[in-house]
């Protein structure tokens, strides 16, 4: 069975500091991993994904994520947080192709403190 864990409900970080939002996954085959961000009263927006290739994936708004197969993790990172990064972040995993194959974590609320 596929599952995603986001162990932190809330992450607080000072503006200008690096941020990390954690994600671990469990999947039966090769994982395909996604990060989405949700701003208040908005739908989810795609940030980045890992399908294959380089373990370090760069995405929108200066975010990046590192795929670590041995630790089954896909943590989201940014070198310098902005107040505008404050939002709800979702990690999602898929074991492969298929329209009903994307499973979401419960989300992590990131607050960047000015």
């Amino acid at each position: 069975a596929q599952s995603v864990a986001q162990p932190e409900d809330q992450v607080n970080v000072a503006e200008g500091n690096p941020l990390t939002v954690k994600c671990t996954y469990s999947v039966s085959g090769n994982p395909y991993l996604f990060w989405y961000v949700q701003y208040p009263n908005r739908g989810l927006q795609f940030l980045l994904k890992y399908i294959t290739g380089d373990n370090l994936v760069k995405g929108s708004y200066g975010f990046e994520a590192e795929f670590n197969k041995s630790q089954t993790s896909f943590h989201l990172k940014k070198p310098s947080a902005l107040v505008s990064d404050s939002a709800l972040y979702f990690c999602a995993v898929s074991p492969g192709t298929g329209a009903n194959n994307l499973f979401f974590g419960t989300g992590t609320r990131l607050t960047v403190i000015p």
Partner: protein
Amino acid sequence: NAGVTQTPKFRILKIGQSMTLQCTQDMNHNYMYWYRQDPGMGLKLIYYSVGAGITDKGEVPNGYNVSRSTTEDFPLRLELAAPSQTSVYFCASSYRDSGTDTQYFGPGTRLTVL
């Protein structure tokens, strides 16, 4: 492109009433999805469609129905609304299947059943 649009934005229903949530996309995507998002939970897939005339159940289909008569539209029907259906509903679409392709989300419909 407007992307994925949903109507209405908000709705309050009484127990036993019915309604249809509308979803339209103008990106010529083959795949469309309906999710619900409950507080503190990740998104759960209700129904999905891989093309006009083809729909299938997701993880939580009970109490809902869908149809896909055109590529653009994917309405979600609630029959006999129950308090357990109080949630935020998101429609999404992707060009290919969700296993590897990016999903694009609408702004959501906040439904309250009293």
